[in-house]
């Protein structure tokens, strides 16, 4: 069907060969904005994170304090801007760690198979069977809360799910003839998972990474809400909600805005992974 294709529309040149959805683009911009905030917080925050700026607590929105003040009279806007560092940073680090471990193990298990796969799968299934919040509470309560501990804990909790997901995808790719050809050529494990399997599963794995990021943000927020996350005077968004929960009856903006921040980040990530740019298969127009 490559001969004299007629086209009734003016041909639009897709230089990237991808179709980008507007929802996905907006979601991406929101995430990008939060990432920029996390990096530049000290430059753009009007007040230092722990500074008590006013003796009046739970103030409403005003020109001086756009998001009001918290239960100690600190500027909520500044605290949210600083909180982005913890929420985005810790979540990003742990999701990267969890997916790197999970996906690598998953692909290796699919390629090697046999007893290695069985042992690894059963071990990680055992980890899945422990409720994630209980496990996080126990680990952090036992070891104590610090950034590395939080990152590792969250990574350990989300690795088995990532492993299961990647393994299921990799098993399908592993059954393709091109992987058999590479095996019979005598290729080693490293090449097989890197060059033959990974490119075939990277799309769904990225979508899974986005979803897992959302779960981690929520789990981190709930841990901080329970007082086991980021420790004062620093606070991530979950901790901000928790410490200002008393203002709920006073209709204080101090409890609303951190919640909105969590919602905007998690919803944006979700929308982005649902609307990732789609590769356009029909390339004959710009060939």
């Amino acid at each position, binding site marked *: 069907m490559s001969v004299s294709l007629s086209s009734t529309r003016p041909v639009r040149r*897709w230089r990237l060969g991808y179709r980008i959805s507007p929802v996905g683009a907006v979601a991406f911009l929101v995430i990008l904005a939060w990432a920029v905030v996390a990096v530049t917080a000290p430059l753009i925050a009007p007040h230092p994170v722990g500074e008590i700026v006013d003796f009046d607590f739970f103030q409403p929105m005003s020109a001086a304090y756009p998001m009001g003040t918290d239960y100690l009279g600190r500027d909520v806007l500044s605290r949210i801007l600083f909180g982005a560092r913890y929420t985005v940073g810790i979540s990003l680090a742990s999701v990267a760690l969890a997916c790197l471990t999970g996906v690598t193990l998953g692909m290796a298990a699919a390629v090697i198979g046999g007893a290695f796969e069985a042992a690894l799968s059963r071990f990680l299934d055992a980890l899945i069977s422990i409720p994630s919040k209980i496990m996080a509470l126990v680990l952090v309560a036992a070891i104590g809360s610090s950034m590395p501990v939080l990152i590792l804990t969250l990574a350990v909790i989300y690795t088995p799910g990532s492993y299961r997901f990647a393994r299921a995808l990799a098993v399908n790719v592993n059954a393709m003839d091109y992987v058999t050809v590479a*095996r*019979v050529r005598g290729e080693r494990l490293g090449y097989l998972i890197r060059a033959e399997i990974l490119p075939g599963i990277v799309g769904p794995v990225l979508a899974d990474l986005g979803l897992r990021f959302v779960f981690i943000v929520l789990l981190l927020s709930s841990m901080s809400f329970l007082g086991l996350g980021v420790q004062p005077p620093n606070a991530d968004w979950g901790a901000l909600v928790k410490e200002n929960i008393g203002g709920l009856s006073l209709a204080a903006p101090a409890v609303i805005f951190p919640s909105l921040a969590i919602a905007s980040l998690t919803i944006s990530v979700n929308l982005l992974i649902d609307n990732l740019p789609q590769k356009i298969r029909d390339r004959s127009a710009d060939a």
Partner: protein
Amino acid sequence: MSRLVEVRDLRIQARTDAGRIVEIIRGVSFDIDEGEIVALIGESGSGKTTIALDLMGYTRPGCRVTGGTVTLDGVEMGALSEGERARMRGSLVSYVPQSAAAAFNPAHTIMDQVVEVVRIHGSMPVAEARTKAVGLFRALALPNPETIGERYPHQVSGGQLQRLSAAMALIGDPKLVIFDEPTTALDVTTQVEVLRAFKAVMRKGGIAGVYVSHDLAVVAQIADRIIVLRHGEIQEAGRTADILERPQHPYTRQLLAAFRPGAAPRPARLDQDEAPLLVVRDVVAGYGKRDANGLPALRILKGVSLELARGRNLGIVGESGCGKSTLARVIAGILPAAKGEILLEGRPLAPDFRQRRPEDLRDLQIVFQSADTALNPHQSIGEILGRPLAFYHGLGGRTREARIDQLLDMVRLPRPLRHRRPGELSGGQKQRINLARALAADAKLILCDEITSALDTVVAAAIIDLLKELQRELSLSYLFISHDIETVRAICDEVVVMYKGEKVEQLRPDVNDGRPTQPYSRLLFSSVPQLRTGWLDGLAQDPELTRAFAQR
């Protein structure tokens, strides 16, 4: 005879995922008289199925009729509402799909599905329809016509299911039946029976038919007229005998030429003392638990032996399930043999490829049937061909680039193709890349597993020519596995016939002039449709023999 179908200047457009609009049917006009069978023939993508489906007033999702008319029995299909069209389907026009297995619901009995269309239309009482269905089963030469309807689809064979789906199409007394490649998925011995049954029923009922196929020889047996399609346009139309004997259009001639491949080259008798390249001795392989003797529970290969001399080709033919592909996998070590020996150049090979030496892996390359799954869609052609060069020969940098260009030249592909990905190539081009990858290893023996089966006739013929040329240049040997006997004979001087995991016989050009002697091989060879009208009617096969072997 009065006119049943009139198609006038039919145009159908499809929309691609980039929003681009492609015209896939470009002004097609033809007629079908009552009781006449017309074949639509062409390569994949020629629009033959799209036209056939539009005779029922149906277009596939994404397609749209933009011009022309289809008039069926005096009614213009395009002017009807969807509900009115639905009333005509099954009673005036019906459809026999390519895959009967996919067309039957595994959860209902066959009879319920055969009479379903009558029940929906309310055209006759169900009890009467059941009696009629039994009559159709008998007319279609199905075994146990009274009781076969009580079975479920998985309880009958593929050939029987295809005939049952014809019964389903015929139950509403249609005037036109559309057959969409109904025998393509069947083995040749089964195909003969199914074709015979179709033909008898259609003739008896005076039913008009549209037979969609890419196989000229099959079409020659059943059609009154042939319409040759390409790129959504009619290239040539005429009576079957005229098309076959006096083709006018160059494309039709090309199709016919591709169907009659030249005979295999007969190399000069080789020195008998030279050790054979490949020896397979008493190989047993299969799946499932191993018993006390180390033999698997389900044996696919039951003691197969063969020899292949250097620079020669060996063909392996047989029907689906005879173990021919398993044999290739066993020789390649993908499925380790439970028993028996495999020797390459006199060296014994380990049953499992993991224990084989790198040189052995390099010397023996396997080329799979489907280039779609055998080429990684995420790598460029350059990467696909470059890897074996780097892996086996340690080539890098400019020498590797030069060798990739050389390989592309060898398989007659333009060099700039190296930057593309497999998804951007045609089926024939992909199969050439698949072959070039095996050549990159500098293999001595290439196992070709049905490498032309997924290709159109003309493209497949070009691949066969390429294989012959490469053999002359590189002194390769091929083990050529196919269900298509004509293709195998075009490239192999010796042919092994397999049946149910055993070697029936090995045909040599110097023994009995290469003709089969065993009953099964004779049946298999005689079932291959020949490119002349009346072959099917004149075919005399022993019914006892057919029943004994073609139980599928």
